[in-house]
C-alpha cells in the first residue's frame, strides 16, 4: 500500500495509476465539501472533476512539506464558489427540493437523526449565506477542520473566519427557528440569538 506522499510524488511525475489512486483517496471529501457549498450532488461532481483536472496539471508545482489537504481544500472551495456564482439565479433562487431523496439518505429508524431533513434544511437555509460564510461553516462545522486550518484554506485571518462563522450560525439559527421549528428545542423557540430583533 502506498502512503500518500508516495502517491503524490508518483502522480506528480505523471503516473496515471497513482493519480487514480490519489483521486480515490480524496474524492469523497472533495465531493462532500463541494456539495455542501453548491447545494447538490450533480454540481458537486462537476466541481470535483474540475478540481481533479486542476490537480493533475498543478501537481508538478506542489511543494513537498506543505499540506496537500489544505491545498486540495483550497482548490475545491474556489471551484465550488465559482460554480455557485456562475449558476446565478439557478443556484440561488430556484426552490430547492424538500425531500432528502436527492441525497440518497435512507429514512431514519426511531431515535436516529433525520439526516435527509437536515440535508434539505441546510441546502435551503445556506442560500441565505454569503459564499464565504457558507464555506467557513462547511469546513469548520461539517468537515470539522480547526479554525486555523479553515483560515489557511480560505486565505484569510482566523478572526475573519470566526466572524464568518458567527454570521453563518446566526442566519442558520434564525432559519431553523422560522422554517424548521421541529429541529429547535421548545425552550429556544421564540428567542432570537445575540440580542437580535426580528
Amino acid at each position, binding site marked *: 500500500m502506498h502512503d500518500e506522499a508516495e502517491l503524490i510524488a508518483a502522480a506528480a511525475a505523471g503516473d496515471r495509476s497513482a493519480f487514480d489512486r490519489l483521486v480515490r483517496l480524496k474524492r469523497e471529501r472533495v*465531493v462532500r465539501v463541494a456539495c455542501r457549498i453548491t447545494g447538490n450532488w450533480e454540481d458537486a461532481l462537476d466541481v470535483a472533476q474540475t478540481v481533479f483536472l486542476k490537480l493533475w496539471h498543478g501537481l*508538478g508545482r506542489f511543494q513537498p512539506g506543505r499540506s496537500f489537504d489544505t491545498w486540495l481544500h483550497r482548490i475545491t472551495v474556489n471551484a465550488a464558489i465559482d460554480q455557485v456564482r456562475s449558476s446565478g439565479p439557478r443556484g440561488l433562487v430556484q426552490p430547492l427540493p424538500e425531500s432528502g431523496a436527492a441525497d440518497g439518505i435512507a429514512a431514519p429508524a426511531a431515535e436516529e437523526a433525520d439526516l435527509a431533513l437536515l440535508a434539505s434544511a441546510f441546502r435551503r437555509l445556506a442560500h441565505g449565506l454569503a459564499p464565504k460564510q457558507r464555506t467557513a461553516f462547511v469546513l469548520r462545522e461539517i468537515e470539522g477542520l480547526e479554525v486555523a486550518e479553515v483560515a489557511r484554506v480560505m486565505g484569510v485571518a482566523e478572526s475573519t473566519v470566526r466572524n464568518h462563522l458567527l454570521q453563518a450560525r446566526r442566519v442558520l439559527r434564525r432559519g*431553523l427557528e422560522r422554517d424548521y421549528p421541529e429541529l429547535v428545542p421548545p425552550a429556544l423557540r421564540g428567542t432570537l440569538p445575540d440580542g437580535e430583533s426580528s
Partner: protein
Amino acid sequence: MSEHPDPTRLGREGLDPPERAALLAHVARCAACRGRLAAEDPSLLFSLLGLVAPPPDALERLSERVLAALPPGARGPRLGRGRLVGALAAAIVLAAVLAGVLWRSGAPAPRGGPAALGRPADVARPAAVGFGVEIHAPESAQLIDLSLGDTQLILIFDEGLEL
C-alpha cells in the same frame, strides 16, 4: 463515567478526527444528545451532515470522468515558475556565449599593442548580430525562441512529449 459523551464538544475545537467521528455517530443515534446539542446551538445539528457520504456510484462515475478527461500521453512534471525563470536565464547565458563565439569567429586576431585592436575595414564581419528572445507558453509546453542574427535556437519544454 457518563454513558453519554458531551455533544457540545462538536462546536468546539480540539477534537481529533476519530473522536469527532465517534461523537457524531453517537449523536446521530441518540435523541437526548441531539437535544443537548440543539440547546447549545441549533445550527450545530448541521455538523451531522459530515456523516452523509455521496452516493457510491457517483464517486465511481467521477473517477471514470476524471481519467477520461486527462490529456493523452504521459506527463512529466510541469515547469514551475522558478524552474522556467532558471531555464530562461540559462538560455540567455547560452545565447550570450554563442554571440561571443560568432563575433570572435568573424574578427581578426589582435596583433601588436592596443592600437592594433581596431578592426580593419577589409575583414569580413558578420552582419549586425540581432538578438531576440521570445517565450511561447501554450497549454502543454513552454518554447523559448532565441534568435542570433541568422541563427535561431528554439528550446522546447513539453510535458506531453514522449521520447
